[in-house]
């Protein structure tokens, strides 16, 4: 191919044309800017959420390293450190656990750690340093608080250390501390190497050959260059370095696994990308196409003087890329700012701790946003490029917008401004499709968003979170990190206090753990699961135990009639009077189904069966099953057992046989006028109690409102951008439609059409667009709304699909006003030039 140095002149022509039509090109710029903004916001929020989830998980796990070798030896560390594919290897040496009485609710590990390892565990001292002297110790503020030691360096720390099987007492000096993380599963204390080597010397045999497999062994953490398939990389690493593959304990940090990106969020991200791509395409294509058609004369001219089609194509492309060069950076900036505002709101509703928020500024966000915007612009401009390239020099001079082939004959009708508008619309149906689609997008989004929010059921949401107005329980019940849970936390004294409050009715739930036999049916089912390989590895042992023992865990709830109102009944009927007699029990025993592939339910017990329960003091009592029903979730223990049953019996049966008379929950219902007083009293009492916590209906209502507000905010922002695009597209269609027909309008004026009649006609055209849009939006909503919305929100447990088109109809007046005002204003600008001037344009 012959290379000709013509790039410069092509660029010059492209540039000159841009300068010539500044106003027209502002719209393109704006469109590209909006597209880039939307992509940046989407990527930025998605990446930030992902990073925050990862961070939050890492903090729970207690480390940011990708993988680790547990209980290794120094030579293992040497091998790992010297491996070329490993980066950031670090280690800590296990010493023991702190066993002070004050620390019984706080798992406290004592280790020696390198500085890098401490930092990797988010445990590097923020005040003071890591241990230097032999008896130095650094620890989290949560341990200090539990021990009642003030946050000051140099304090004496007395710890009872369990090292191996022996416990000993030591006195340390505080050399550093950091803010303890309540999310983390264990708290850390770091001692000096000297101390570690003395009390917990590293054994010479591998841990799997030693009885005490922890004390003195090295926990080795490391990273790879990429977080892709960490497990595979780790296995390869071990094999490469000759580790005992069977016995070496390996841990992969599950913060890195793909589980953080589930299919729903992928779907949302993909949907968002498509939506933006479509919206961007619709406007950019439309504008480019119209511009090319408007400039077709000059393209024809260029062709007559010898510009090739390829070069013309390049002129249009150059223009597009020029706009990208300005629009995209601005879009990236605005998008980042927008994401920064939206992210905390979105993250806040995902019950993430605020301290876990990470606003990501990963370069991938910008690479992605730039790439997608350029792709959108590229796709959008390729048809206009072809049109410009294909133009024939002769045709170009008399080229008018490709009118669709109309009818050749038509019966005469009475001429009205509406009729003329209608006939005018028929000329370019493709343009109508583009405008109607782009206007509909935002309308559909608004309607979809409103449908989703409308489907959110506050009662359903609250019913799954709280029963009654207040619920008081031991704070460990709702704390999933706590090691031991107290299911009898609300003492008789506590209950008496709550009962004494004005306007309060109290209902209690008592708890007792027991066993129930596994029936033959269930045993068979378990066997089937096992045969199908549906039982996860970590449950195999437990399942085989249940099968052998032929019994399963059973949680007995002692409840009064009040709780019967909050049950989901699967079989039989609940009769409070009969229940109160103490002859009946209500059983629910199908948790284990959750592990199977089919989501069906299979119960071990049915109505009329007789069950015998062993209570805490060993007494046995036989009940008849009244119904198969599940207790409301807020009244359950908040914990699942792998295979087990929940049985509800009258409260007295549990209370009378229990050694600890404390209740699991105390549920208060309150007269509305006493609500504030009771809240105040409960709050104060719970704070002073030391072990209790409470939740209120109001907190959950607030949570619900926050959640809904997020939808309004995010949906509103997206709808606003899409609406802006739609309106821009509409303005563009109207204005260019007018410019294209300028001469025709001038001629109609010459034969006597007044400005007002012309304006009427244009307004009618606009109104037709509005009506088409509305009809299309309603039709699309009815056809696909259910499918899309249930796909998006169907998984949310408090969502019920309730179709509505009220939001669409509410938009109708706004749409019609816009559709009427824009052509009206545009037609006024038309008359700034005289009829003669306008008629002459085409000559």
């Amino acid at each position: 191919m012959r290379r000709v140095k013509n790039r410069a002149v092509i660029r010059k022509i492209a540039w000159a044309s841009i300068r010539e039509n500044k106003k027209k090109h502002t719209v393109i710029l704006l469109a590209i800017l909006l597209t880039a903004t939307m992509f940046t916001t989407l990527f930025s929020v998605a990446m930030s959420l992902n990073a925050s989830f990862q961070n939050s998980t890492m903090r729970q796990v207690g480390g940011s390293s990708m993988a680790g070798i547990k209980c290794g030896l120094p030579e293992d560390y040497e091998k790992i450190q010297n491996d070329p594919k490993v980066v950031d290897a670090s280690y800590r040496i296990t010493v023991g656990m702190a066993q002070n009485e004050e620390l019984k609710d706080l798992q406290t590990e004592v280790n020696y750690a390198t500085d890098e390892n401490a930092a990797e565990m988010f445990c590097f001292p923020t005040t003071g340093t890591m241990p230097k002297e032999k008896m130095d110790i650094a620890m989290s503020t949560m341990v200090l608080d539990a021990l009642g030691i003030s946050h000051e360096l140099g304090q004496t720390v007395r710890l009872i250390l369990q090292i191996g099987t022996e416990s000993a007492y030591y006195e340390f000096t505080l050399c550093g501390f950091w803010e303890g993380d309540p999310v983390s599963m264990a708290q850390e204390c770091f001692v000096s190497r000297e101390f570690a080597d003395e009390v917990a010397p590293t054994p010479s045999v591998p841990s799997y050959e030693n009885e005490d497999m922890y004390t003195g062994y090295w926990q080795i953490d490391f990273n790879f260059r990429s977080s892709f398939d960490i497990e595979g990389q780790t296995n390869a690493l071990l094999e490469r370095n000759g580790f005992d593959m069977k016995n070496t304990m390996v841990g992969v940090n599950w913060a890195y696994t793909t589980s953080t990106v589930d299919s729903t969020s992928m779907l949302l991200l993909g949907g968002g990308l498509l939506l933006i791509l479509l919206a961007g395409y619709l406007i950019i294509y439309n504008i480019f196409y119209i511009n090319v058609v408007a400039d077709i004369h000059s393209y024809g001219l260029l062709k007559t003087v010898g510009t090739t089609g390829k070069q013309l194509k390049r002129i249009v492309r150059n223009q597009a890329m020029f706009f990208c060069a300005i629009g995209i950076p601005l879009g990236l900036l605005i998008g980042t700012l927008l994401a920064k505002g939206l992210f905390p709101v979105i993250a806040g509703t995902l019950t993430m701790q605020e301290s876990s928020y990470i606003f990501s500024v990963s370069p991938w966000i910008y690479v992605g946003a730039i790439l997608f915007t350029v792709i959108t612009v590229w796709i959008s401009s390729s048809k206009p490029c072809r049109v410009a390239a294909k133009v024939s020099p002769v045709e170009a001079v008399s080229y008018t917008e490709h009118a669709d082939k109309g009818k050749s004959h038509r019966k005469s009708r009475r001429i009205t401004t509406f009729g003329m508008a209608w006939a005018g619309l028929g000329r370019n149906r493709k343009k109508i499709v583009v405008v109607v689609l782009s206007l509909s997008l935002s309308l559909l989004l608004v309607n979809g968003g409103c449908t989703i929010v409308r489907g959110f059921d506050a009662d359903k949401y609250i019913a799954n979170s709280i029963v009654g107005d207040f619920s008081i329980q031991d704070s460990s019940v709702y704390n999933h990190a706590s090691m031991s849970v107290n299911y009898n936390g609300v003492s008789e004294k506590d209950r008496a206090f709550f009962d004494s409050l004005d306007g309060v009715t109290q209902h209690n739930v008592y708890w007792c753990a027991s066993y129930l036999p596994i029936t033959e049916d269930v045993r068979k089912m378990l066997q089937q699961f096992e045969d199908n390989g549906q039982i996860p590895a970590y449950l195999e042992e437990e399942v085989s135990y249940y099968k052998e023992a032929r019994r399963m865990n059973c949680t007995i709830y002692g409840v009064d009639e009040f709780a019967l109102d909050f049950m989901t009944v699967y079989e039989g009927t609940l009769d409070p009077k009969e229940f109160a007699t103490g002859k009946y029990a209500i059983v629910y025993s199908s948790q284990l189904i959750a592990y199977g592939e089919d989501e069906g339910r299979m119960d071990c017990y049915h109505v009329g069966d007789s069950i015998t329960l062993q209570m805490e003091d060993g007494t046995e009592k036989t009940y008849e099953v009244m119904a198969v029903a599940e207790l409301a979730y807020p009244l359950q223990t908040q914990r699942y057992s792998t295979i087990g049953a929940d049985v509800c019996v009258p409260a007295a049966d549990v209370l009378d046989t229990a050694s600890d008379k404390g209740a699991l929950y105390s549920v208060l219902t309150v007269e509305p006028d006493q609500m504030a007083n009771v809240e105040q009293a409960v709050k104060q009492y719970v704070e002073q109690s030391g072990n209790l916590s409470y939740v209120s209906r109001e907190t959950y209502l607030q949570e619900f409102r926050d959640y809904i507000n997020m939808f309004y905010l995010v949906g509103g922002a997206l709808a606003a951008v899409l609406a802006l695009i739609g309106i821009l597209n509409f303005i563009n269609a109207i204005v260019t439609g007018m410019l294209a027909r300028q001469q025709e309008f001038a001629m109609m004026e010459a034969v006597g059409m007044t400005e007002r009649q012309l304006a009427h006609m244009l307004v009618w055209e606009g109104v037709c667009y509005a009506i088409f849009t509305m009809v299309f939006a309603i039709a699309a909503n009815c056809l696909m709304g259910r499918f899309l919305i249930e796909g998006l929100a169907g998984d949310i447990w408090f969502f019920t699909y309730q179709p509505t088109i009220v939001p669409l109809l509410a938009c109708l007046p706004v749409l019609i006003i816009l559709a009427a005002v824009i052509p009206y204003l545009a037609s006024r600008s038309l008359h700034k030039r005289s009829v003669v001037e306008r008629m002459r344009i085409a000559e």
Partner: protein
Amino acid sequence: MEVLKTSGLKKYYGTGEKQVRALDGVDLCVNQGEFVAIVGTSGSGKSTLLHMLGGLDRPTEGKVYVDDKDIFTLNNEALTIFRRRKIGFVFQAFNLVPVLNVYENIVLPIELDGNAVDEAYVKNIIDTLGLADKTDSMPSQLSGGQQQRVAIARALATKPAILLADEPTGNLDSQTSQDVLGLLKVTGQQFNQTIVMITHNEEIAQMADRIIRIEDGRIVKGGDCHA
């Protein structure tokens, strides 16, 4: 009887050095039923003059009387309405509305005025111009000559005081030009219609009752209707 008269009509474009005097003091008059041709070279100001006569453009100075009405005392809206009632236009580029069929194009000015169409009169015009079998056709289906005949019918349909024709045969071949112009003249006589036509074609101009010659924005011959 005079239906059209101008006095001291001037139209200047630009100022100072660059000023162009498109019309520089034009006085002319046209009688009822007359067929007048205005001839001149390209740039002589004949199109500008026609635009002034039809109220499409406002003069820098001077007056235009149609049926003794000083048309430039009207505002734009009123002028447009006056135009559709009193003046019929035929343009070189035919200028039919592409989305309306032949009949609708012809009655457009009447219906824009909200008036009932004088069916018999319009049918008469259509028959005279030989368009009877084309009334339901769309403009894109017609030849140039046919389109121009529709434009003439449209101009006549409102029974205007004057019919202004701007190079009506400019886009037609010579045979079609002869035919169209013959029809224009015949219908003018038949409906006693005053016609003012501009052209640069001497042969075409010869078909008129009177020829007005214009050069550099001034009338050099034939402007007086009493001569």
